[in-house]
């Protein structure tokens, strides 16, 4: 049975290769050469790029009910690291997981619009700066790095502030950033991967994906080679 998978892959590549040959024959085709090559690979096939989002009547109400409690639990874990198990790392991960949950229920695009890149970057960068800053205040007062008893607040709150403003912010920001990065995938535009114009907008890349998807379905007579395999 272990031979079945390479055979599947070969037939699939062969099919899309033939399709690419057809599109290459027509010079007026909108699909550029590098996109045609990218489509023959298993990763990043264009039919798969536009992940269909369907509003589920089960998932959406469930997430609406669960999300506030889960987010509060994440905040609790973050803020009560000194008195109960947990801390900034675990709480930050739980809060990021709440965002994943919302994104799965209400659509990743909508969540990305709601949670702008600025927020994610501010969390990650601000967390790193806050941790370093809290560590450096005792140094400025003539002590060692992170010497909490030289902070103007009690030692316990020094630890808590590192957990809350430092670790929790970094972890939640980076995890959400990785989620949004992976959700966008390898945008096969221009240099194979990486958006050429990724810096000027978030909706832009989606428009590109949609446009390419519709263009390929319009121009190719057999656009469902991958869909047939599934």
């Amino acid at each position, binding site marked *: *049975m*272990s031979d*079945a*998978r390479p055979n599947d*892959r070969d037939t699939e590549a062969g099919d899309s290769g033939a399709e690419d040959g057809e599109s290459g024959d027509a010079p007026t085709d909108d699909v550029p050469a590098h996109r045609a090559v990218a489509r023959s690979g*298993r*990763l*990043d*096939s264009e039919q*798969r*790029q536009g*992940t269909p989002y369907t509003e589920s009547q089960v998932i959406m109400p469930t997430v609406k009910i669960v999300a506030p409690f889960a987010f509060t639990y994440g905040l609790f*874990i973050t803020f009560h*690291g*000194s*008195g109960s*198990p*947990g*801390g900034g*790392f*675990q709480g930050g*991960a*739980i809060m990021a*997981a709440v965002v*994943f949950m919302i994104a799965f229920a209400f659509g990743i695009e909508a969540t990305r619009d709601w949670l702008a*890149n600025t927020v994610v*970057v501010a969390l990650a960068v601000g967390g790193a700066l806050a*941790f370093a800053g809290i560590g450096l205040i005792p140094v400025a007062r003539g002590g060692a*790095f*992170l010497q*909490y008893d030289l902070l103007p607040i009690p*030692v*316990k709150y020094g*630890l808590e502030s*590192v*957990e809350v403003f*430092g*670790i929790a912010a*970094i972890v939640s920001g980076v*995890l*959400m*950033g*990785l*989620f*949004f*990065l*992976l*959700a*966008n*995938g*390898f945008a096969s535009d221009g*240099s194979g*991967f*990486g958006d050429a114009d*990724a*810096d000027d907008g*978030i909706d832009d890349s989606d428009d590109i994906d949609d446009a390419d998807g519709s263009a390929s379905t319009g121009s190719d007579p057999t656009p469902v080679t*991958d869909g047939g*395999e*599934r």
Partner: protein
Amino acid sequence: MTGVEPVIAQVTAIEASLLVFVVLTAIVTALARDVLAAVIVFGAYSLGMAALYTFYRAPDVALTEAAISAGVTTVLLLLTLAKTTRIDHEAVFEEINIPAAGAAGFLFVGLALTLGDVPAVGSREAPVWSNPDVTQWYLTETYAQTGVENTVMAVLAAFRGFDTFGEAVVVFAAGIAALIVLHREVFA
């Protein structure tokens, strides 16, 4: 928390069933033919491990395992799978690769031979009790020195705070590295 006498824990029925569950899910993860099924079973494995950690009185580790392994990693793997083409298989399980199974069995036998020397859970012979002056110092002195009741958090944030700063920066650098690898300038 101070000066606890070690308790030799008996393996309860819940622990035993959790152990069996974890082993079974690990085997299914390794053998499942469909990657989606493997990812889902792997999430169940992580959840079982998290429950097991709470039974062994490591709630901090359990929280991390549940949040990161069962939650975040599963979501990120599912997201990656959604971006790729899924192939339908007739077979549920992979055919067992004889050399790989032999190597795994060899490793298993080698590790099983050391089981006789592993101390029981909570035993005085456990390495964590080999230097009670150090371990008990943290348990007795943490509250006096930091005012924090959770010793694990005090050790992480205060006693080895510089290491934790390095770890936090590593997490931050991982986000930056993902941006660089994907040729992006925004998390989108």
